């Protein structure tokens, strides 16, 4: 670890913090349908959208009809994407002449982009036409992110409103999230990416002659625009297979820092939105601090583990001062690779600028565990916020009992119904991750996809299902996931991780929304202080640790001990 490395990490995180606060307050205005800075330009456009769609933006929905609208919208998005991919061979906008996508891959990819996972079982530049990339995948990059933001709004309103049965309007929230937040931000970020050297073209590819005289085809495309929303919407699905390690997707240190900054931005802004909308900014700050504490600890571990390197390489005579550089890009270095690894998994982004498979066992344990914690540090766009609110509810429940009062969070009593729904949501991830991993670990057809044996192979499996269920989308790689078994089961894991999780959360929000806010007294446990932050961090770690410790012990943990005993896989 170097001082310069830490300075870079601190600079990026600070830049996020500086931008997140105003953005968070701006989003609070957007989702409360107030006038904003951009209203003069966007309000007419917004009205035109409502007029064209023919609905009243102020008509409020119950949690159930809001959720049904969301499910319907996503189902249509899935179908559209699926059909588009299956038919890409006969559709225009296909200069490379790619064939239609296979059913299982189309299912997996459609689910993946609808659920904001952006797991890619394929290599983008050699599988998907420009038409699919632009009208299918990029559009879903916007819509899945907007869906997450809309759902987070409902979760926030659950605490902001008192004694109402309506939670807002799904279509209004979607339109406003896209129009007022995602679109302007991605224009700004896309231009910034262009300035750092990302290509933006509709041409298919260019042919280059290498120094040896060989002919090389370099794939091109509308990279900068897709990159912007990929990061902002914590989608993570790269234009190129190598994702952000590809020199055209992430050419230099500046583009790398911009990537990290832009993927953290909205997720880090949401706690501010939360604080503003519930009328107590300290509440949002507490959540953000808890996220930051865990995220920075994770960066520290990865940075340390990677710079400590692999003792086996040192004994083999490899220059070891740089630590473990396998699978990393020299232009980013250890610090920015470690930060990227942690941020992309602490968020449910899943873009990668280094090979996670090549991380040291402990360095690989961290991103996997961050995903398993439920993508809440700070999590996906929107989904991170409602995820951490569920954890906060569990924390408050135990803490509330310990101070001898019916537990309440922000004045909303947490009772049997809320616990039932929160536990339902919490059960989804271990169910999807552990059950599919265990089955795959016993299934010869699945095991044949593994590139590595022993605990490292198990890590690859565990990572794949964690990434899918956590809607992260990054791959540990070393696993050939483009098989019917993996495409299907990973697709199911993604669906469970998104929708089986969010439906109980919406019901929870509906139930809280209907409750009257109780006033706080000296007997109420304050949820903005250090004690709460510490407790929240503890609950997240202990709950996550208890669920995944046995699995992790057989994967990265034992691999770590084996590595030090001189055994590799």
């Amino acid at each position, binding site marked *: 670890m170097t001082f310069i490395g830490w300075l870079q990490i601190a600079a990026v995180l600070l830049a996020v913090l500086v931008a997140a606060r105003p953005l968070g307050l701006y989003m609070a205005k957007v989702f409360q349908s107030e006038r904003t800075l951009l209203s003069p330009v966007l309000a007419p456009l917004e009205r035109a959208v409502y007029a064209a769609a023919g609905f009243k933006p102020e008509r409020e929905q119950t949690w159930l009809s809001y959720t049904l609208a969301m499910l319907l919208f996503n189902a249509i998005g899935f179908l559209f994407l699926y059909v588009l991919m299956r038919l890409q061979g006969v559709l225009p906008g296909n200069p490379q002449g790619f064939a239609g996508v296979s059913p299982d891959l189309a299912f997996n990819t459609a689910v993946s982009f609808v659920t904001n996972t952006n797991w890619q079982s394929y290599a983008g530049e050699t599988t998907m036409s420009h038409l699919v990339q632009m009208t299918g995948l990029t559009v879903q990059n916007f819509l899945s992110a907007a869906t997450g933001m809309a759902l987070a709004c409902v979760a926030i309103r659950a605490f902001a409103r*008192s004694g109402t049965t309506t939670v807002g309007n799904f279509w209004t929230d979607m339109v406003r999230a896209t129009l007022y937040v995602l679109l302007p931000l991605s224009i700004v970020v896309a231009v910034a990416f262009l300035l750092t050297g990302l290509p933006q073209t509709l041409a298919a590819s260019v042919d280059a002659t290498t120094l040896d005289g060989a002919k090389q085809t370099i794939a091109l495309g509308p990279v900068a625009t897709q990159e912007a929303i990929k990061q902002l919407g914590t989608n993570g699905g790269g234009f190129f297979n190598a994702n952000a390690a590809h020199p055209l997707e992430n050419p230099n240190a500046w583009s790398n820092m911009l990537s990290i900054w832009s993927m953290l931005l909205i997720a880090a802004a949401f706690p501010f939105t939360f604080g503003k909308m519930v009328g107590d900014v300290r509440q949002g700050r507490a959540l953000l601090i808890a996220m930051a504490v865990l995220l920075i600890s994770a960066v520290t571990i990865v940075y340390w583990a990677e710079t400590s390197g692999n003792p086996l390489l040192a004994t083999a005579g490899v220059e070891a001062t740089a630590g473990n550089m396998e699978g990393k890009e020299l232009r980013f270095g250890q610090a920015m690779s470690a930060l990227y690894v942690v941020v992309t998994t602490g968020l449910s982004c899943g873009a990668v600028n280094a090979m996670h498979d090549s991380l040291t066992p402990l360095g690989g344990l961290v991103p996997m565990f961050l995903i398993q914690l439920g993508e809440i540090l700070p999590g996906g766009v929107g989904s991170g916020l409602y995820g951490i609110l569920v954890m906060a509810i569990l924390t408050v*429940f*135990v*803490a509330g*009992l*310990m*101070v*001898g*009062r*019916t*537990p309440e969070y922000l*004045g909303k009593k*947490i*009772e*049997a119904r*809320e*616990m039932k729904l929160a*536990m*339902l949501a*919490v*059960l989804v991830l*271990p169910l999807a991750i*552990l*059950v599919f*991993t*265990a089955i795959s*670990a*016993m299934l010869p057809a699945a095991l044949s996809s593994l590139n590595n044996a*022993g*605990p490292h*192979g*198990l890590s690859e499996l565990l990572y794949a299902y964690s990434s899918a269920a956590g809607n992260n989308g990054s791959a540990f790689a070393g696993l050939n996931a483009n098989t019917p078994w993996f495409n299907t089961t990973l697709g199911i894991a993604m669906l469970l991780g998104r929708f089986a999780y969010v439906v109980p959360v919406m019901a929870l929000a509906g139930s809280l929304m209907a409750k*009257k*806010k*109780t*006033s706080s*007294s*000296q*007997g*109420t*446990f*304050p949820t903005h*202080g250090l*004690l709460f932050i510490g*407790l929240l961090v503890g609950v997240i770690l*202990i709950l996550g*640790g*208890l*669920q995944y*410790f*046995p*699995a992790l*012990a*057989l994967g990265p*943990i*034992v691999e770590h*001990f*084996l590595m*030090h*005993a001189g055994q590799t896989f």
Partner: protein
Amino acid sequence: MSPRANSAPLFDAGIVKTAAVDAVRKLSPRSLVRNPVMFVTGVVAAVVTLVFARDAVLGSPDTLFTGQIAAWLWFTVLFANFAEAIAEGRGKAQADELRKTRSDTPAKVLLHPDDANDDLWEKVSATDLRVGDVVLVEAGDFIPADGEVVEGIASVNESAITGESAPVIRESGGDRSAVTGGTEVLSDWIKVKVTAKPGSSFLDRMIALVEGAERQKTPNELALSILLSGMTLIFLIAVTTLWGLAGYSGTVLPITVLVALLVTLIPTTIGGLLSAIGIAGMDRLIRFNVVATSGRAVEAAGDVDTLLLDKTGTITYGNRLATAFIPVPGVSETELAEAALLSSLSDETPEGRSIVALAKGNYGQSETDVSGRQPTAIAFSAQTRLSGIDIDGRSVRKGAVDAVLGYAGQTMDGAASAFRDAVEAISQSGGTPLAVAEGNKLLGVIHLKDVVKPDIKARFAALRAMGIKTVMVTGDNPVTAAAIATEAGVDDYIAEATPQDKLAYIKSEQAKGRLIAMCGDGTNDAPAWAQADVGVAMQTGTQAAREAGNMVDLDSNPTKLIEVTEIGKQLLMTRGSLTTFSIANDVAKYFAIIPALFLATYPQLGALNVMQLSTPQSAILSAVIFNALVIIALIPLALKGIAYRPVGAAALLRRNLLVYGLGGLVVPFIGIKLIDLAVSALHLA
């Protein structure tokens, strides 16, 4: 507090014996299924027992190990059952005591209740009484059912319920008309109109509650059971899938060790003690002489934000008492005190008696016997508004200021300025001034005021520290009310309160999201009672109020709500702290069991064996034994509850987290290590 409180020891030999038997009886699936965590433990214990039987038949080398695991799993369930049984046993002991008083005395039902002069009655068994029947209860009879006195007056021994041996007066009309079935009339007679069906009387409900027969899970308990069930499911997933992951790694995990891992991980500690905590909480309440109609009410009491108290009888003694004599210039305090004493000698009102007491006490007047001096007592009348005495040629009068001024032939303006100032000051402070005159000479003023009970201010301070706001309800004018409110240290008051005012106040507090408790005798308060979230009725109150309240305080001490609130909070704290303890324990159990499971495949995982447990089997067995023993060790804590201190939520949480969170992390490391030492010393595994 009555003698009943604190009487029973935590473990009584008889109760323990019965509980041990009950613990086995509670193994029936129908009883276990009510507790998901223990149900799972029971099911897997049965599975391991089958494995043990198979091992024994096949003569497997693991037979001894499997047998021990099976035995300790059963012990885990038994210990949990025992905890519940012992809590119930303590309740039952109380119920039996109560039941003794409910002898089935025949009731004397009046045949013509409408005719007050016709006392013809017929003997009917108390169990055959119906609501609306009127019964005659004479000296020596037990009152057969809950009811209201419609005629007569009697002294009643209510010690069966209140534990208070002094008899109380019960009479028709007013707030002392309610009588309770099972209490005994000591003298005179009363006619009682039955208001409760046999079997649903106050005493019956009390018995049912302490026995736990009617026990339903309270809202918070329900929410906690859901959390515990959810945790159990999560661990079920983690342990089941571990079998597959282990298979991949080349280890075939026997069912016995998987079960051991599962049972040590699921929250058996809190799961096993949960119902014992609830029963013990109700039991503690009754030891404080408060009867709650449901566990829900007790929990609600723990959440109360605002407490409404009647001023009269609760905050103040209820009568205006003389507190000072203020003479006019030229008159000594002793002269005024003597005159005041003389004027009040024949005044039997509480005010008059308090003047006599003050004169004799603080002002050193001696016992005066005036009977030989042929006094003429002048009684108070509504017209004259003064009273006094004519004696030895002196005419001493005291009374309302204007009446006394008139008697002395003076006017307010003509009186000494010191007199005017004193009258003014007393009125300002919310007191009542009484003037004293002898003949046409004005002597001074007596300060009458509503005296606040001496310890009440400290009680309100305690409530405030708990986060509860106190509100005084009084019919006094705002000036008086404000003065008393300041003196008693209440946070707010409602002056000149009408029933509508009270109702409006409660509604507005509730609209702000506060939970309201109301204490009082309940006269004229029915709508407000119905609106309040928690109503603590006084045993001396009306039957209607006792029915409307969620709780009845048998000692009729309105500030008892402090104890009730503490018990409610204790209940939640005990549950929360043991849950934290239970979950924190899992960390150590992982470190004990995971390396043990995979030692053959991955000896390197031995690095996680931080406790240096001797063998894999010993490690697993020790964790299971620790898991079972910790239930037994925590039974006293579950029964007594965790001490509540009114120090504010954050401080309370910090303390409980330190003790039960950190303790929960550390204790099992030590405990499992010690058990491992014992297990390997005894060559058990």
